[in-house]
């Protein structure tokens, strides 16, 4: 949370989470013909968000200030 970059990434992640859990995407997942894919979709999106958050939160500790910039791969 020290550098603006991390704040921006976190905000982006929150927006992504709100998007993934909201009706437009949820409706798409649910309306798959025959069997609904809603439940697998939710778990997948959920897990992805957790992984991204873990990456974002845990990575910073072992990294110097200078390198924060170069890993935008």
């Amino acid at each position, binding site marked *: *949370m020290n550098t603006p970059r991390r704040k921006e990434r*976190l905000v982006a*992640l*929150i927006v992504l*989470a*709100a998007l993934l*859990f*909201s*009706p437009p995407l*949820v*409706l798409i997942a*649910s*309306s798959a013909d*025959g*069997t*609904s894919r*809603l*439940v697998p979709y*939710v*778990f997948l999106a*959920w*897990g992805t*968000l*957790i992984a991204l*958050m*873990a990456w974002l*939160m*845990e990575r910073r500790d072992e990294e110097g200030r200078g390198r924060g910039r170069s890993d935008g791969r």
Partner: protein
Amino acid sequence: MTGGPTVVVLAFGYLALLFVIAAWGDRRAAQGRSLIGSPTVYALSIAVYCTAWTFYGSVGRAAQFGPSFLLIYLGPTLAMLMAPFVIGKMVRIARAQRITSIADFISARYGKSSSLGALVALIALIGITPYIALQLKAITVSHAVLVNYPQAADLPLADERFWTDRSFWVALVLAVFIILFGTRHLDASERHEGMVAAIAFESLVKLAAFLAVGSFTVFVLFNGPADLFAQAGEHPELTRLLSLASVPGGALGWVGMLVLAFLAFLTLPRQFQVLVVENVDERHIKRASWLFPLYLLVINLFVIPIALAGLLLGGGDSDSFVLTLPLSAGLEALPLLVFIGGLSAATGMMIVETIALSTMVSNQLVMPLLLRSERLHLGTRGELAGWLLGIRRVSILGILLLGYLYHALIGETYSLVTIGLVSFAAACQFAPALLIGLYWRGARGRGAALGMSAGFLVWAWTLLIPGFAQSGWLDPGFLERGPWGIAWLRPYALFGLEGWDIYTHSLLWSLVANVGLLVGVSLFTRPSALEQTQAALFTETMPQGLVPASLWQGQTTRGELRALLDRYLGEAASRRVFAAPPPESDEVDDDQPAPAALTLRAEQALAGSLGSASARVLIDSVAGGEAPDLETVLRILDTTSETLEMNRRLEQQSRELARASEELRAANARLRELDRLKDEFVAMVSHELRTPLTSIRAFAEILRDNRALPDEKREHFLDVVVRESQRLSRLIEEILDLARLESGRLTLSPTRLDLAALTRQSVEAVQRLQEDRGVSLEVAIEPETAWVVGDADRLEQVIINLLDNAGKFAADDDPRVLLRLARHKTHYRLAVEDNGPGIAPDERERVFEKFHQIQHRESGESRGRPRGSGLGLPISRGIVAHLGGRLWIEDAAQLDGACLVMELPEAPAEAPASTDAPDGAPPEDRDAGAAP
């Protein structure tokens, strides 16, 4: 099935284990080796969010409403993603202000208003008690299922007296537990380490139990998930269950539930307790922000498989599938484990919720009343610290008994999920005052109070009362037709809004009323000074601790303050306050006025125990409470925020300034160095010019004054004059060359020439001279012709200079110089070696600076050799560089001394090259194979 006594022994044994863990946690805390100082424990303690409602109710909800149960956990996931911002901020503020509960937080935000705190406490009490009842009900029902299976677990309450009802005893045991571990310190803002350790342990137990029953269902009752889902796929109604269609309210209900869970997660008193009050270290939030969502995901993995399995294998009460599935398979141990897991979930929630509620009740409801009552007013002496703990203990007992009462009276008619969601919606009423208050400085206490009251009323009308009606306490007719036939007041279709699920419906209207009033009233309310200050502190537009001390204008004496603290906190605590840095020495007279900082510390200490509103009342009672007038506060606040902004800009500017001045300093240092070099140069040149000039003048004077000198002598003197004049003009020529080189005005006339021929010519020119000096000169010119582009005169000057130089520095006995010309790739290299002492590697670049020549010249002089101007090498390098070549020094390949190497590029065939060759930078690392 399982023997009743076994279950009872197991359950109370488990509670005893909790006692042990909590006692251990407290002992470790006392030793300073905290058990809970880890982000993982923090994340596990947040998992108190998963109550018996999660443990049993999720499966029930999944069986009825498909994936909608997931929303209860997606909301907190969203909230935890924002935790680094939102919860981090709350933790910072709560620590600085010694906040004890969410009621205290909201009350402190709006000017330490005691009425607002009381309102929050009341709403929490009314809204959350059913939730505690729900946990008791879960324990009772699960116990009944376990004991009575395979008979239906119907209504053990009806034929039991309360003293034979296990849930009553569970409530009592928990009350003892909470009193022991929840009210150790008077200071409610201090952490309950033992309790948190026990909660974290319970979180592990319930997770393990749920995963065990889930794995059993999927892998023992069925052959893995594929088999289970394949079997479920044969039933169209089960397939439909898993789609959005089975979520109440469809897409809208989906969003409503998501928002509900999101807000409730932040505002439920127990969540506030573990998230904010019990937080040990703000950095733990980072880990918890993903670990806790992961916990939620894992504990939900098996919910749908268990629900499907339960429906496939023959129904029953879906809330009890977690128990009935292993029971139906004839197992004994697994159902017991599940029961313990459910017990963990239920007791964990009850412990934390009761602590949070009891703190609110004692600090926000009871204490303000006691402080107002005449009997306890400051005139009387005596320690109130014991009283405070007593109040908190009694309220713990009261809350648990209230929960039990609720459970015993109407618990039968509610399903688990219904109660939980109703409580969620009640807690959501705190969200506007809490969250808007954190970010909008203009939010006012009156707006918050009105908004919260309105939201609460709407909640009661749209959720609570209809719930009573459905329990048969009221005539449910008004649900259909509206009260007194007024259709737009129907609880489930307020203002004619129909077709929404009841929770989204209630959330919408209550939040509209709540936020609307909060914002609307705030816009038209003037705040008190204190409220203005607190608002600025909470929105972090002002640093904590800056203004309260400087704003404090009330006056009190140290003696009065000490008496107040002694009375409410006990003497030990008051000594701590007075001893905190800067230490207030005891020798100071108690009649002295108390400094503002001390008063502030005293207020904070009181706030930690009594809540901020009561602390304020007490301090006001001794200090007169002469808060500064509004204008002062506004001015200070505005100045403060402007100053902060200004500070930020200043900081940025000063960083830029620092950088600029750093550059300036470097430039200045370089200029000074250049200036010094220039002075040296001028001094050196003057010295060099004066020497020949002096001798010319001396000899000329001799010639003028002694006309009668013999011819021979006169001839000699004239020779000296001529030679010295030549030397003088050569010197001046060199200085001019150097000046031209350095200013870039040196004019060269490059032509295509044969370096080999030129070298031979140069060698011939100096050979005699060198031989005269006793230097033996060897020459090895390898190529027949060596075409380069250069100015013949200048190049000859360079070569002669190199040879001259080498001759000067060759060894004293048997001086030798070796000249080699060889081709190197596309260049020609002319190397001149001597057998002198050589030049140390770190000196090699410096000899090309004109000023280091002085030392050279001196060292040359000391050896009695002919001296030069010392400008030869810098000039040579300048010329070579102008011709696109390089000049450097390396170790001699054959002789022992120095080796000066000149390298010039080979001329392109027949075409004359441009003169604008770049300055040759001297290479630092040349390959050793350069010299053959």
